[in-house]
């Protein structure tokens, strides 16, 4: 059984970090999807 000290602080620190990165990544990808559809495919040089 794992027993950590400062569990609340660890959960907050790691939890907030992963949530922030996850939310930012999701927002960027979703916005990219919606805007990429508005330009011609030949302008999307990466796909």
């Amino acid at each position, binding site marked *: 059984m794992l027993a950590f*000290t400062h569990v609340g602080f660890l959960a907050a620190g*790691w939890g907030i*970090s992963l949530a922030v990165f996850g939310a930012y990544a999701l927002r960027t990808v979703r916005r990219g*999807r*919606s805007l*990429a559809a508005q330009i011609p495919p030949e302008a999307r040089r990466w796909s």
Partner: protein
Amino acid sequence: MTTPPDVASGRATTGSPGTRVLGGLTLAGLALLLGYSFLWSPADIAQQDAVRLMYVHVPTSIVAFTACFITTFASAMWLRRKSDGWWVLGAASAEVAVVFTGVCLLTGSIWGRITWGTYWDWDPRITSTTMLFILLIGYLALRRIDSEAGDPAQRGARSAIVGLLLFPNVMIVHFSVDWWRSLHQTATITRLDPTIEGTMLFTLMLGIVVFSMLFVWLLIHRFRLSWIEERLGSTGLDAAIGERRAEAGVPAMGGTV
């Protein structure tokens, strides 16, 4: 309303085969990092398990500083070449730097509450990092504010000059612990003989690699998104100017504005 065919087929994205591979490797790396951070690395004698915050706090700070360097470099290159690529890279890197700097400040604040008994102190490193965070937001805000003359080049030059200030500010953050009395310790991992236990050092290095991969993945996606936004913005501006000229009965100009 119909869905555009590219969206329906899932092809219209900022992703590419390379970013999909990098994304997968980053997720696997994050899982490994969580394992090392919470299961396989020992607790510290003095800090106990609070040391596990180091594996997210230190890597995010290093990546944030790297992102600031990229924005400063891109700003200098834009001032020299005035090309869209450098303009877009500067913005993309600055926005990702805001996220990493914000996470660094948050995790540092939580770690500070455990080790120093306070979430905030006017410590030189905390204060200079906060200044960096504000400077990054200012840089991004300046890019969105039109100059009085509506001249995009003037707007670009103004924000690029602020972009040039970012990396010198990073140097202040880095050396602040040596220049002034600070709650932060001096350099631990940049010296040739780091005073940190083997598994802890490995976990820290793994954290730096994984968060660097995350940064590259985010930067590529943000760069492509900014590229699309610039294209749509200039297309929209052309269309608006065309409409105004048509209203005024002025013949359309050749080429793009």
